[in-house]
C-alpha cells in the first residue's frame, strides 16, 4: 500500500487511488521498425531489485498519468514527476545518486 505524490493535483495518493502502468520511458516503435526493436518495445521489461522507474495513473483522483522513481526493495520513493518527458529529471537522478551511488537503469544513471 504505497503512497505516491501526484505531481498534477498535489495529493499524496494512497495506492487504492492509483493504477499501475508498468515501466516508464519506453520508446515506441511503430511500422518500419525491426522485429527485434518492436518485440523489445512490446515485451522486454526491466525487473530490478532497487532503483526503478514506473508509470502510475491517479485513476481515482485527477486521472493524470505520472512517473515515479522508487526502490523496489526498500520501497523508498525518490520522487514523482511528469509523464510528459522521455527521461527522468536531473534533480531526481541526482537525488538517487546521493543515496545509491553508481546506480544504473537502462540508459540512465
Amino acid at each position, binding site marked *: 500500500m504505497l503512497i505516491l505524490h501526484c505531481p498534477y493535483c498535489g495529493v499524496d495518493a494512497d495506492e487504492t487511488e492509483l493504477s499501475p502502468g508498468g515501466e516508464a520511458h519506453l520508446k515506441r516503435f511503430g511500422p518500419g521498425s525491426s522485429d527485434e526493436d518492436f518485440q523489445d518495445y512490446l515485451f522486454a521489461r526491466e525487473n530490478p531489485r532497487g532503483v526503478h522507474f514506473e508509470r502510475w495513473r491517479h485513476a481515482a483522483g485527477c486521472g*493524470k498519468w505520472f512517473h515515479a522513481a522508487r526502490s523496489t526493495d526498500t520501497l523508498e520513493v525518490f520522487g514523482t514527476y511528469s509523464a510528459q518527458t522521455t527521461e527522468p529529471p536531473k534533480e531526481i537522478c541526482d537525488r538517487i545518486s546521493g543515496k545509491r551511488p553508481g546506480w544504473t537503469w537502462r540508459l540512465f544513471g
Partner: protein
Amino acid sequence: MSTRLANQGRLIDRSKPVKFTFNGKSFTGFAGDTLASALLANDQMLVGRSFKYHRPRGIVASGAEEPNALLGLGSGDRFEPNQRATTTELFDGLESASQNHWPSLEYDIGAVNKAFARFLPAGFYYKMFIHPRPFWKHIYEPFIRQSAGLGRAPKDRDADRYEHFYAFTDILVIGGGVAGLLAAKTAAQSGAKVMVLEQTAHWGGRAPVDGGTVNGTAVADYIAILVTELEAMDNVTMRLRCMGAGVYDHGYALGYERVTDHAPSLEGPRHRLWRIRAKQIITATGAIERPLSFAGNDVPGVMLAAAMRDYAVNYGVTPGDKVIVATNNDDAYRTAICLKEMGVDVLRILDARDTGGGELMEQARELGIRIDCGRAIGKVSGGKRVKKVAICAQAGTGAALEEISCDAVAMSGGWSPVVHLWSHCGGKLTWDDSLSQFRPDPNRPPTGADGQGFVVPAGTANGEMHLGEIVSDAVAAGKKATQDAGFKAKRTAAPRGVDTAYAPMEPVWLMPRNAEMELRTKTWLDYQNDVKVSDVQLAAREGYESVEHTKRYTTLGMATDQGKLSNINGLATLANALDAKIPQVGTTTFRPPYTPISMGSIGGEARGEVFQPIRRTPMHDWNEAHGADWEPVGQWRRPYAYVRDGETVHDAVMRETRNVREAVGILDASTLGKIVVKGPDAGRFLDMMYTNMMSNLKPGKCRYGLMCSENGFLIDDGVVARIDDDTWFCHTTTGGAERIHAHMEEWLQTEWWDWKVYVANVTEQFAQIAVVGPKARAVLEKLGGMDVGKDDLPFMEWRDGILGGFDVRIYRISFSGELSYEIAVSASQGQALWNALRSAGDGFGMMPYGTETLHILRAEKGFIMIGDESDGTVIPQDLGLNWAISKKKEDFLGKRAQQRSHMTDPTRWKLVGLETTDGSVLPDGAYAVGEGVNANGQRNMVGRVTSTYYSPNLNKGIAMGLVLNGPDRMGEVLEFPGTDGKIYTATIVDPVFYDKDGEKQNV
C-alpha cells in the same frame, strides 16, 4: 483432574455464572472466563482431533498462539469454524463444538488413520503422486478425502454486519502490555497522535501474571495507572480486542477489532477492520513460549508452562492435581511456585540444565518442590489425557530412570519474541545466542517512502526478557518513534523496573538430546498439522536444505496457527539434521495477518446491494415495470428481453426478434459508450486510435471503426460520427466506455502529449433509443418535427433536430440490418422521449426488445460482437474485416504488430458462418475436430463456435465461428462434439445469413 481452584482468578467474577455448551453438553463458567479456561474448569481436557492422524488434542496455550483448541462456534447463519477457545471470551448461551472427528470426539473412527502413519511421512502428497495409479485411486484418495479439511465451512449466509474504519495517526502502538502502554505514554507526551491496539480484552499483557515492580509499585497497579493516564489524553486512541493484523508498505497497518464477539447481544458490527496509516509503528507484541520436543508432548494435559500459570492466576483454574514441570530456563519455575502456592501438587521440576536455575530455583526448593537437574522427559503416556511421565537423562537416548504418575505436564523451551509485525514489511532478524531466539535487527528495519525505518520494536518483542530492560526499552522505543515521526520527545527518565534475575537458559531442541527413533516418531513439532521431529529429519535426509522447501514438504507451520509454536523448534531440528547453525537455516517468511481474520471483516460493508454500484439507464424503471429480464453488462443492467405474462424468456426473445424484422422494435441503447474527441489534432489522433481512416470523414457522416491494442488485437468497435471541423463523436461497446476513454487518455498523456486534443466521456449525459424495423420511419414521421426520409437523412449519416418537441440527434445507423434510427437526447429527457416514441409506435405494432434480440439480429447479419468473436487473441483480419483496416495510413495502434509473422500466418482461424445440418443450435464455445491427434493424444481442433443462436426469422440454428482455412472451405461439414456426448454437424457457410446485399438497412 482439571478443575477450578477455590480462590484466585483476577479476571473472573465468581458472582456471575455463565452457561454455555460444548458438543451439546451444558457447562457453567464465570464472567471473565475464556472458553478455554471454562472448559478446563469443567475438566474438559479433550477439545479436538488433529488434522492428519485425528490424534486427541487438548488446550496447550492461553492466547493467540493456540494450535489445538480450534472449535466451531455458534450455529446456523452464525456458525464459524476454527475459532480458538483461548481467545474466545465466554458469554451466556455460547455454543461450541469440536472438529475433525466422527462419530464423536471421544470415539473417533478417523483415529485409525494412525495405523496408516507409515504412509504419511514427510512429503507424502508428493510421493503418492508417483505411485501407480490404482494405488492412488483405491487406497490414498479415500483416505486423504476422509482426513482433508479442518473444521467445516458454514453453509448459510453470514447474518452479521462488518465495517471498515479509516484512521490516520502519527504513532501506532501494537500491543497493550506494559511495554506498549509505556511506549504510548512516552510518545503521547510529545503531543503526537497515538493509537494503541491490544488484541485481548485486558491491558497489561503478561506482566500482571509474572509480577515485579515498577518504581516500587506492583506492576499490575502501575499498569492501571498508565491506562488511566492514557485514557485521559485527547491525542490517544485506545482499542481493546483489536489485533494488529498486519504491517504493510509506507506505514499502512490493519487492525482487526472484534467488537461484539464477546457479547453478541450488543448493538453494532461484529468485526471492524481498521485501515490505518501511521508515520511510525511500535511493535510491542510480546513473546511466545516454546514447547519442548519430547515423546508424547501432544497428549492432552501437556501445556506450556506460562499458559498453565495464566490459567491459575487469571482464572483460578489448574489443568491438573499432580503436575510435572519440564524446562530449560528459569521462567517455568514461576509456574511451579505459583501452582504450589495455590495448593496444587507439583511433583517434580525436570531442569534440562546440569546446573539448574538461579534465584527462582531456590524459591521453589524452599517451597519443598523437588528439582532434578540434567533430567528430561523421556516420554509422556496417556491417550486422551496425561497418565504418567518417564524420566530420563537429558544427555542420553531416553532410557527411563523412573516413571511418575501425574495428570498434567508444564513445559518451557524458552521464549520467542513475536517478530511477525516487525517482519511483515521487510524488517530483518538477528540471532541472539544467549536467549536462542530471533529478535529484530535494529539496523535493518522495514523502510518507508523516505527510505528510513518506520517500525520500532519494544519490550519483549525486542528480545528483552526482564522488567527492568522491558521498561527502559519501551521508553527508548517511544522516544525514537516520536522523533522519527517528526515530534520532539519529552526528556523523561525511564521508570525503574525490578523482577527476579535468571540463570542463563540452555537451548534444548530435542528431549532427551539423542532420543532414539521410537521416541522421535512420537515427538510432535506441529500439533495442528501432525508434523513430527522424525518428519523434518527425513526431509533433511532427502535433501531438503531450504527451510521454505522443508516447510512445504512436511507441512510444518502451514496450518491456521502458521507455526507460532512449531517453527523455531522445526528449524532448529532442521539445522541439527543439516549440521548447520540456526541463523544459517533462517526463518520462513512472516505474512499477514498475524492470526486469521474473518472474511466478513475484509469485505466490510461491501456486500449485497453495495458490493458494487449498479448503473441504470434513464429508462431503467420503465424497463423494470415492463417485464425486463435483467442481464448484467459490465456494471450496467440491460433488459435481456421484456417478458409478458404467460411467456417464457425464450418466447419473449422469439417474439421480439420477429417483430423487429416484420414491424418495428424499440431498444434502450443508452448504455453504449459515448466519447467526444475534440481539438485541432483530433482527426490525426483518431487515425492512430482506429484501424481505419477517421480524419477524412465528412461532418454529418458516420463510419464504423475498429480499435486495436498496440499488440494488434481487437479491443473495441463502434460507429464514429464527425460533428464539425474539429469534433468527432465515438461510440464504444456497452461497458467499454471507461476502458476506451482511459486508453485514449493514456496515449494522449504519455505518448502524444503535444497533440492538441481533448477527450470526454459523455456516456451518461445522453439517453439513446434505437427505433428499428421496416416501420421505423413511419413512427418518427408520426412524431414529426424533422425530415427523416431516405434523402434527408441517408444511411450512415446523422442530423441534429427537433423530433416531437425533443432536442435530438439522430444517427441513421444499423446493427440489425433493418431501417434503423438511433436517437440521442439529454439523459433527463430519455424517459419522456421513450414514452413519446412508444405512443407514436402504437399503430405500427411497436414492441420494446432486449439484448438477446439485438444479438440474434446482428448474428443474422454476420455482424461481429466484441467479446464473442473477439477474445483478446483475435485480430480484425481473422474476422474478415480487412475492409476496415486502412492501407493508406502509415501508422495506427496495432499496425506494426499485425505485420509480425504469427499475425500474418495463413493458418490463423478465420470467421465463417455455421449452419447445423439438422437445423438445431450448436453449443456455444464448442470446438470442431479434425483429422488426427495432437501430442497429448487428443483429437486435433480445427475451429470453434463464437456465437450461436436460434433464428426465428430463418427458423433454424445459426452460428459464427473461427475455422482453420474457413473461408476457403465453404460447404464443408464440420463435427462439433458437445459436452452432452452428442456430435453436432454443421456446414461452413457465409456469415451473412440475412439480406446479403444490405438492401433493407438502406431504404
